[in-house]
């Protein structure tokens, strides 16, 4: 009993540290002006959040975060940076008031909603008693994949996933075409005389 409590304490502590890192990185992203530093920090943000997902046992989300957040989105953001300037414009102090109020309101609503959430890993929560339990009990006999998330995404909801993938692929293609990944900006930066 005691060991469980100790390991729970350790997990809680690690969660708090990771969330604090996320908070600091978020504040830094909001405060910095250099766009390149912001791109780097967003890479850090997705690395840390993937670690946090692993601690919450959401391994599949961590996998996606690793592939998309750390790898692809950094490249996409850099491609976007090629088309624009290197630093963000300084804003007027009062222009930030309205977004701040919106963020505060959303945060308040989320905190209010989180009061009703069941505890993490609670076996009696609606997620774990209804259809979730069915999937967990039946998926291996029906599909034969060891990972329950794979069998849900690729088999039970196969068409859904197919459509989703098509949409995401089209969106990615459109972004790549819009950004052009460089031809124009390369010519421009050569004309301007290279670096910085």
């Amino acid at each position, binding site marked *: 009993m005691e060991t469980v409590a100790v390991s729970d304490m350790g997990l809680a502590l690690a969660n708090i540290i990771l969330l604090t890192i996320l908070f600091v990185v978020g504040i830094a992203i909001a405060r910095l002006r250099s766009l390149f530093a912001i791109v780097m920090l967003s890479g850090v943000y997705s690395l840390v959040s993937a670690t946090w997902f692993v601690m919450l046992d959401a391994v599949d989300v961590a996998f996606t975060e690793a592939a998309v957040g750390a*790898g692809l989105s950094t490249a996409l953001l850099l491609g976007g940076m090629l088309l624009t300037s290197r630093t963000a414009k300084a804003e007027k102090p009062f222009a930030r008031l309205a977004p701040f109020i919106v963020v505060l309101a959303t945060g308040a609503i989320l905190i209010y909603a989180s009061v009703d959430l069941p505890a993490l890993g609670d076996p009696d929560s609606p997620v774990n008693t209804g259809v979730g339990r069915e999937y967990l009990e039946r998926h291996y006999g029906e599909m034969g994949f060891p990972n329950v998330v794979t069998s849900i995404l690729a088999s039970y909801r196969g068409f859904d996933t197919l459509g989703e993938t098509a949409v995401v692929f089209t969106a990615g293609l459109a972004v790549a075409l819009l950004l052009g990944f460089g031809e124009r900006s390369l010519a421009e930066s050569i004309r301007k005389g290279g670096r910085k």
Partner: protein
Amino acid sequence: MNLLLASSAAALLIAIVLMLIRTLLGPTLYDRVLAVNSFGTMTVLLLGLLGFAMGRPDFLDIALLYSLINFVSTIAILKFFRYRSFQVSLSRRVPAPKEGS
């Protein structure tokens, strides 16, 4: 034993926090790239360690994926630095004459 694992995970977390400071300070852009790359290596190690600490060594798959993705993104960033474009091939090798294979 679990205490040893927990303390090494804690030490890795401390290292990650310290590296975050370097990322935030980093006077030059290269310092930031270096810090983020190191950050990635440490995340790979922390993910593996967490898998063992939580009794689920299957998590190593994610660590494996990370070690590859981290490399790809570092190279992408540096290619961006060097050529300001992703369309230049990294090696300017002339196509080798075909032999064998």
